[in-house]
């Protein structure tokens, strides 16, 4: 969708190129992250794509067409543009801000009305409350949502985003990122996304382009950057805790043990107790006939109990979903001091079990250095 060929930018009066002969190919529907430390040329590179920065040499093609052949305002109107400082026009209402590009393109009022409502609903800001607010009446997170919404107003296939979540506190940023990914899943836009935050890059990116001093150092999926860093620089940039960051990429599904041992609520306590002692189990999962999770029983409570297991069953306080990423699952396990957590799918059925040992081994699979960090987080494994 977007092709960059030997793109170079030399600012007048400067000897060193700000962007140095970058080749890049961004597939349709991908989020491509441009990342690097400040001054590496990532923003300049992005701004060249809608000609906010003149290109010194090289070619940029969007959808097969050179951007130099297009009228510059038409080009910019066809590309969504969102920036870190948001840049909402303070003298305009939310409605007028979102309608900026539709106005420029001369949409009729009815179409604009519908589009604004649709977009506000999409980012979960009720139109009736927010339509006629002014930017100064919005919180940071709300303003940022409107900023992104404004960039999407005409449903452009390509969007340029310069640290769109940069100015937001970490908690809200996470929320916005998740929201954005959910929207992107549906809309499948081609997005160029500038950030300096490696966590954000790994989380958001389909592809990551790491830049240093104007040059493209490595271009690949987050997985590739983490597991096969091309050189020392990439390794240092993604950080010593690469393995931990990989947890962001993996889902619970990838690490969980499927079909864990469990018993049924109707089972007699004595049999189960015997079985547990035999297998040296301190507790056991309980499910009903349809594999719906009921909870667990522990050894002490079963001892001396007569009757069915379901009478002594304790509810599971914490479960994870198979689609959750491993980092969230692990942090839950750590904060509740659990050695094991049950993955439950949306229907309440047991999907699998995640324990810290399997988790470590999954993450370590492609991690070629000695796993020194892991001793710290491996809790006493209580494996069924």
């Amino acid at each position: 969708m977007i092709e960059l060929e030997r793109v170079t930018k030399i600012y007048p009066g400067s000897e060193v190129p700000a962007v140095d002969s970058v080749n890049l190919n961004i597939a349709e529907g991908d989020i491509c992250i441009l990342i690097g430390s400040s001054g590496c040329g990532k923003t300049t590179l992005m701004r060249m794509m809608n000609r906010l920065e003149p290109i010194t040499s090289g070619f940029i093609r969007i959808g097969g067409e050179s951007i130099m052949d297009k009228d510059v305002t038409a080009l910019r109107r066809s590309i969504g543009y969102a920036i870190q400082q948001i840049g909402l026009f303070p003298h305009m209402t939310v409605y007028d801000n979102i309608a900026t590009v539709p106005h420029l393109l001369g949409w009729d009022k009815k179409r604009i009305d519908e589009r604004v409502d649709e977009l506000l609903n999409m980012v979960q800001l009720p139109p009736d409350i927010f339509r006629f607010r002014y930017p100064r009446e919005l919180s940071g997170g709300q303003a940022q949502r409107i900023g992104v919404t404004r960039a999407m107003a005409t449903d452009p296939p390509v969007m340029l985003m310069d640290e769109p979540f940069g100015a937001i506190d970490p908690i809200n940023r996470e929320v916005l990122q998740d929201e954005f990914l959910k929207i992107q899943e549906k809309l499948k836009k081609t997005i160029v996304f500038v950030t300096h935050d490696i966590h954000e890059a790994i989380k958001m990116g389909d592809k990551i382009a790491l830049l240093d001093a104007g040059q493209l150092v490595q271009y690949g999926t987050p997985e590739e950057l983490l597991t096969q860093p091309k050189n020392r620089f990439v390794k240092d940039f993604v950080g010593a805790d690469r393995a931990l960051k990989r947890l962001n990429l993996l889902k619970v599904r990838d690490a969980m043990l499927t079909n864990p041992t469990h018993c049924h609520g109707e089972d007699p306590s004595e049999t189960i107790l015997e079985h547990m002692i035999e297998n040296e189990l301190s507790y056991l999962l309980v499910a009903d006939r349809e594999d719906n999770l009921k909870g667990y029983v522990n050894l002490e409570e079963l001892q001396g109990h007569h009757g069915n297991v379901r009478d002594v069953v304790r509810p599971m306080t914490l479960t994870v979903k198979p689609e959750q990423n491993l980092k969230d699952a692990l942090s839950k396990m750590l904060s509740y001091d659990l050695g094991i957590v049950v993955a439950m799918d949306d229907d309440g059925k047991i999907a699998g079990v995640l324990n810290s040992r399997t988790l470590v081994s999954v993450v370590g699979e492609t991690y070629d250095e000695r796993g020194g960090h892991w001793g710290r987080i491996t809790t006493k494994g209580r494996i069924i």
Partner: protein
Amino acid sequence: MSENKEAGTAGRVWMSIGFIFAFAAGAYAEYLGFFTFVKENPEEIWELFLDHCQLVGIASSIAILIGVPMGIFLTRGFMRRYRDMILNILGICQTVPSIAVIAIAMTYVGIGKTPAIIALVIYGLLPIIRNTVAGLANVSSVLLDAGSGMGMTPGQLLFRVEIPNAMYIILTGIRTSVVIGVGTAALSFLVGGGGMGDLIFTGIALVDPGYMMAGAVPTAGLAVFLNWIFGCIEKWIVSPGLVYE
């Protein structure tokens, strides 16, 4: 709520003080023969008042029509580097006393309304240009980046983003210019331009306070009134999204 109430009480106190002063001033004016004079010569005063308004109106309109575009021009592209220089020159011009400006204008175009208007225009330009430049320079570059990034042409950027955001400061400049103009226009009597200066200067020459006040009071009233009008215009034109505290 309680704060509001307090503000209300304070307001009433100031109001009553104001009324007492107004009453005292009125009584004193009557003592000086102001009202008697007004009662005897209403037509003459009205004519001179209209004259005065006309001077201010024409001069201010011209000053606005020249000043605002000039301010815009000074913030565009290549002119930006001359901006400070031009503002300095205009600042120096402003230090020339208004009466001198009127005198200089007279030496070129003779007597009558023309030199008065020319002088008033020159005198009124600076606040307008200065505030237009300051207002436009004050618009955050982020907004300009966002605007041009979304495909606004420079003209659209100017009219849809820059001017609306600079409007408050521009209007303040115009207000200052007009209010100063009302006072300065009194001097135009000296070059035969008419206006309330006629009454004021004649009053001074005759040592007739009533005569003089018949010119001075409406002039002051006009300035206060116009100031208020511009306050209303500001509220009406400037977007409620922009709040200046």
